């Protein structure tokens, strides 16, 4: 008896299967893990979908995440903010708009700078994963090319943002698999541009035309436009001209006659004939909605006032500061008779305002009625056909082909109700870009690439300091003493990242 007991005791290990590694191998039952993912076409399809997602965060900016309009538009003479002295914790936005970023040893603690950087690298990591694994899995060539093309475009787009915001950044081209691979040294700008050009050039033949692609995804046209943009930054005018002319010749795009109808509504007019690439939002509870419009509304605003902009069934009052408010400078930049002015900018009077006339301009381009408060579906334009035409005009003009250049410029002017351009054509193109593409996060990049950023912003700062009330400061309020003290063409790198990287 006792022997059998002990034998049972010893055997139970084997019989229960309890001592072996099988007993100890427990994989997550309710979550996918990397071991089983990336094995079939649908996995890569889902992976590329997820690679678009950070673009929503970047263009929308909810809370401290993202901030293309903070870094690209409000960081220029096009827009400013409505100072609300009763409301604290606004330095993060003000420091960018005021050119007063706290900076030490080439890094800044600003959250918007940090989130822009991180979101771009999120796109890069997701696309690296796809590009690393997709050729190891067999599936249909059309689908595979399409996914690869999208991934290459998105990676290039993210690096293009990074290189223009920061200059030198780390260049990750393969997925990070452990901690030691996480930080890379800063790469030279030229190397990053070379990689962008390589990626987009590879993407162009892989991607279908817009008419053949699912609406909202990147296309061969979008890729050509991205590459043309890169060449324009590099002043490779002939290369840009070739690509832009291919877009025109593709007959995939045309101008919408009424400028007001160019921009998507909350539920419709998305990816229309003029749209080359736009960031996709979806109104409703799926978690894909935007709320950028709400950041652009001057405050404090009552429910009765806000409903005139948003048209929702459940308007809520907003306090705090309003951002991305058109400056007097951009308002003055529209020529008399420019139809785009009233389509881009409107005014609202706020009963609770501490400003003398209580009236503020706001961006009207995106102010489309929608169903629910703080939840809208307007897409964000990245590239439009009118910019294709303006780039083409610029590329031609810079090569001395001013006659041909003017024809493309005038197509855009004609739609705006304006006559042919006069005076210096280069200046005319710059001016046209400013008003045509106002509030589309183009202004800061344009100022930098054309070498005018320091001069223009310094003058702009002086105007604000000389007349704060014209720039929406309440009576008696002045800009902070350190406003416009840190005007540079590149943003400092994020301090939180510097703290974790041995390389900067």
């Amino acid at each position: 008896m006792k022997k059998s007991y002990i034998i049972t005791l010893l055997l139970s290990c084997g019989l229960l299967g309890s001592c072996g590694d099988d007993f100890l191998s427990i994989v997550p039952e309710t979550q996918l893990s990397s071991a089983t993912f990336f094995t079939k076409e649908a996995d890569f399809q889902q992976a590329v979908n997820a690679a678009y997602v950070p673009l929503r965060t970047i263009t929308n900016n909810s809370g401290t995440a993202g901030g293309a309009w903070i870094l690209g538009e409000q960081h220029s003479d096009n827009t400013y903010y409505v100072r609300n002295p009763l409301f604290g914790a606004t330095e993060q936005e003000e420091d960018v708009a005021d050119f007063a970023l706290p900076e030490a040893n080439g890094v800044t603690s600003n959250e918007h700078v940090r989130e822009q950087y991180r979101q771009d690298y999120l796109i890069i990591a997701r696309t690296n994963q796809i590009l690393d694994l997709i050729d190891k899995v067999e599936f249909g060539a059309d689908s595979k090319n399409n996914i690869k093309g999208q991934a290459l475009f998105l990676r290039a787009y993210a690096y293009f943002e990074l290189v223009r915001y920061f200059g030198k950044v780390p260049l990750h081209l393969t997925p990070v698999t452990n901690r030691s691979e996480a930080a890379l040294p800063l790469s030279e700008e030229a190397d990053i541009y070379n990689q962008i050009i390589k990626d987009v050039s590879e993407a162009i033949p892989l991607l279908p035309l817009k008419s053949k692609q699912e609406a909202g995804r990147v296309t061969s046209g979008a890729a050509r436009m991205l590459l043309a943009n890169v060449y324009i930054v590099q002043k490779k005018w002939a290369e840009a001209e070739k690509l832009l002319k291919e877009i025109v010749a593709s007959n995939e795009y045309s101008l919408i006659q009424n400028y007001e109808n160019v921009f998507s509504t909350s539920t419709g007019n998305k990816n229309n004939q003029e749209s080359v690439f736009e960031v996709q939002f979806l109104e409703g509870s799926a978690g894909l909605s935007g709320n950028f419009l709400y950041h652009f509304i001057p405050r404090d605003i009552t429910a009765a006032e806000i409903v005139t902009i948003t048209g929702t069934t459940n308007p809520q009052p907003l306090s705090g500061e309003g951002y991305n408010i058109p400056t007097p400078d951009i308002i003055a930049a529209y020529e008399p008779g420019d139809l785009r002015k009233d389509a881009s900018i409107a005014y609202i009077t706020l009963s609770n305002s501490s400003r003398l006339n209580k009236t503020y301009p706001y961006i009207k381009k995106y102010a489309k009625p929608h169903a629910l408060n703080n939840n809208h579906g307007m897409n964000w334009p990245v590239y439009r056909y009118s910019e294709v035409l303006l780039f083409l005009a610029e590329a031609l003009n810079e090569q001395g082909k001013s006659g041909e250049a003017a024809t493309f410029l005038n197509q855009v002017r004609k739609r705006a109700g304006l006559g042919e351009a006069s005076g210096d054509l280069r200046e005319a193109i710059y001016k046209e870009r400013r008003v045509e593409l106002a509030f589309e996060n183009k202004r800061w990049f344009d100022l930098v690439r054309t070498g005018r950023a320091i001069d223009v912003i310094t003058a702009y700062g002086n105007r604000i300091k000389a007349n704060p009330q014209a720039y929406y400061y309440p009576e008696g309020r002045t800009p902070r003493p350190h406003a416009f003290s840190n005007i540079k063409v590149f943003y400092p790198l994020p301090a939180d990242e510097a703290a974790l990287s041995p390389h900067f």
Partner: protein
Amino acid sequence: MKNKLLQKTRYWYILPLVLLLLATGAHAQNGNIKGKVTDEQGAGLPGVTVLLKGTTNGTATDGTGNYSLNVPGGSGTLVVSFIGYQTKEVAINNQSTINITLAPDAKALEEVVVVGYGSQLKKEVTGAVQTVSAKEIKDIPVSQITQKLQGRVAGVQINQATGKPGQGMSVRIRGQLSVSGGSDPLYVVDGFPITGGIGALNPDEIEDISILKDAASTALYGSRAANGVVLITTKRGKMGQTNVSVSAFGGVQQVPEKGRIDMLDAVEFATFKKEYYEAEGKPVPEVFQNPAQYEGKNNDWYDALLRTAPIQSYNLTVTSNKDRVNTALVLGVFEQQGVVLNNKYQRFSGRLNTDYTVSDKVKVGLNIAPSYIFDNTPRTDGDRGTGILFNALHTWPIMPIYDANGELTKSNTLPANTGNIYTYPNWVRAAEELVNENKITNLLSNAYLEYRPIKDLVLKSTINIELYNNKFFFFNPSTATSSINVTIPTTAVSIRENFSNTTWLNENLATYSKTFNEDHNFELLGGFTNQRFRTDRTRIQADTYADDRLPTVQGGLNINRGGTNSGVDEWALTSLLSRLTYNYKGKYLFTASIRSDGSSRFGSNNRWGTFPSASVGWVVSDENFMQNFSKLNFAKLRASYGVTGNNNIGNYTQYALVNNTINAAFGGNVVPGAAVTSLANSNLGWETTKQFDIGMDLGLFEDRVQFMYDYYNKTTTNLLYSVQVPQEAGFGNFNDNIGEINFWGHEFAVTSRNTEGKLKWTTNANISFNRNKVVALAEGINRVYGTYHITRVGEPFGQFYGLIKEGLYMNEEDLRTSPQVPGRSTVGSIKLRDVNGDGIITNGGDQDDRTIIGNPFPDFTYGITNNLSYGKFDFSIVGSGAHGNELLVRHLYSTANLDGVFNMVDAVKYRFRSPENPGKGKFGTTVGGGNVTGIERDWMSTHFLEDASYFTIKNITLGYTFGAVNRFFKSARIYGSVQQAYVFTKYTGGPNPETSGNTAGNGDGGNLSQGIDLSNYPVPRTFTLGVNVNF
């Protein structure tokens, strides 16, 4: 290859078992002696060892105390021994029937200590083990056993972070802290390491508690032992006795006025606002123009949430140990209503422990303990916006709680020009109308079969099962909300979440104990165990109810997809263990143990961990040369070293997970998206703690004074940490075993019977000093920032980190000559120290002016208990305290927001107004708005820190015992007690200096960011009357 090697090394564990098998030899017998062994009352004692002296010839008594033994020749001496009784030797002298009466060994009874996988005489224990018997703590009127232990045990810091009934106890043994793994000790109930915490356990079921502190005591629990082990033994019958007792207490609880945060009342608040606008040179909004109008119209929102609440408890205990059956039955009902409105905690519990001695070789037993807990707790605790107590604190006192009709208001908001930036709901409604309840059913059971093939060998196999089911229900009706800025009526939301946990454990143990040549005492333990845990979770969130009275799932118009989900969590643990105990004459003591754990949580390259330990003891007082020191009746020196682990690293942390809900929209359609959201680490393993302990136990004046001292030094390495990686990688963190933390400390405990005789007075006191230092973090990382903390190599971890407040800029001269925050500092604003000496004040990055500014850990913790009895009266007073720790008064970022957007602490009346009227220096000027006031409010500095040293009189009890009243009542006792009687502290940040909230966020692990006072649920003072009757 590595795996094979590991497996090979495991085989040696089988050795002890084989040895034990070999040791079971048979032997021939003739010449029969029989008889009965009884106790002094004449009841038969089963299981008594009867041994022919100097031989291995022996037997044990059967269930009624009878024995029979073959003794060749009929001569020699019988040695009759039984745990708890004095060993007796009887000469045989050719008798054939020998009846023996054993006298109880009172001293030995007291001194048996439950240790891991067995028990030991206290005298022979070589590890750092402290015991608490249920008797000592029976009068403490609280819901949880850990509350009862406050102040009792050296080296164990037990804090009540929140006063919520049934919740919020933090137990830290020897300051052990894991960076991100759990830091709670392992609770083992009747040999079963439970998974559900011990909140569900009725304290009245407990007989005694052993707290294992050093690695030699805990190493047999291997990869779960690093935080220390608490062994709980539940009640059993006393040999030969049947006892029935009933205990009951009832009382009331209330929050003392002392310690509450002193806030502005309505008049003072309106005055502040009036002065604020005047100082700004702005028109004063109408509501503030005449503060006197609020005279008698104050709304104390915090007080409105509190009430005086009852507490009651009833227990019936029946124990019996007769005729082979030992049974204990405990039935309990406990109800504590909270001092916050609509808060109730109820527990119904039962336990039946039964041991059945089948024969002298076989014993079986079954413990079964079901319980049911109902708990409804309003969302009281949390930061601004989440905890209604914090929310209530800063709500404007001019906002009415009741409207003109005496109804509770729905919500309050004032025009934006008054500076009111939030809509405040009525917090009384938030407490009363929101449902936030848990219904927990719990079943804890152990079954065992014990077989004694030969006298010295015990084989024991156990099956333990723990079932835990929690039905959580939350309902937010349309009429109330616990959040700021939600207008009423709001969208009604319901959440149902069911957790179902199942744990089973099988243990197979063999214990062989043998004494050779009288003086060499050996015990060898070997065994293997398997444990598996699984939890299934389902959550359904619905909203938009047409009718608040029907909060069903189908009643909601919308099912919230993000809030509706299910999950499974599972782990498995397989272990081999062995221990050798040897002592020579009970004087030289030696113990060695080893456990090997294989865990599903560890990465595939690192599946098995081995945890050895060894300890020695020397009972110096047994040496001849000590006989001259007659005052010192007992002295023992102990030393131990061992390795333990912490496997609280999450179940699937080693895997890279794919999130497949990162969706996108194309052409107006939702399309699914997926991305890898974490990095895999197949090397991931347990945290390792190597601990050295040296200690001594002294008994003076015939044990009138007993003294214990321990010094420990331990090093924890391979800490599980989600190491931040630069997000250029596309990931924020990498789960890895990193770093090294050194802990050391001293523990002293003394028990003194100060007077004996009619007045008996006993004092127990203990004091502990715990220290730690970070030796290393991850490669390339020498510091980890939290929002308010830093963990830095060379410093204790989780230190408060921020700027040093010098005061305020008192005038233009001061401002001009002092370092400033560029563009922000003004006269009257906060003046901070320029630590880096660059002439300006900066906050952020590695090169700024922040430095370590405080320590959330105490210099020492202590406890003192005095018990007095005089005749039939007894009196006890228990206190516990901590000294030298600081708390971050987190609510000040709202309640001292000088922009006047919230109600404020009373002390802002003494703020800076002008160089001529500078106030008391704590609070700066209101002028300049957020650009100026934001520095004081938003930048972490010494402004927010306060010394939180305290000493709390935890309990005072006065009792009176009636003797045997008649033949039914053996005894009865009545008593009155005050729990949380008084808190001695200079801390002004809130009512509970024991609190320690932590914030979640970037770089904030729970343990890296301790010592934050979020103004949690206050701990009430409780007055109770109780009665114990024994039948």
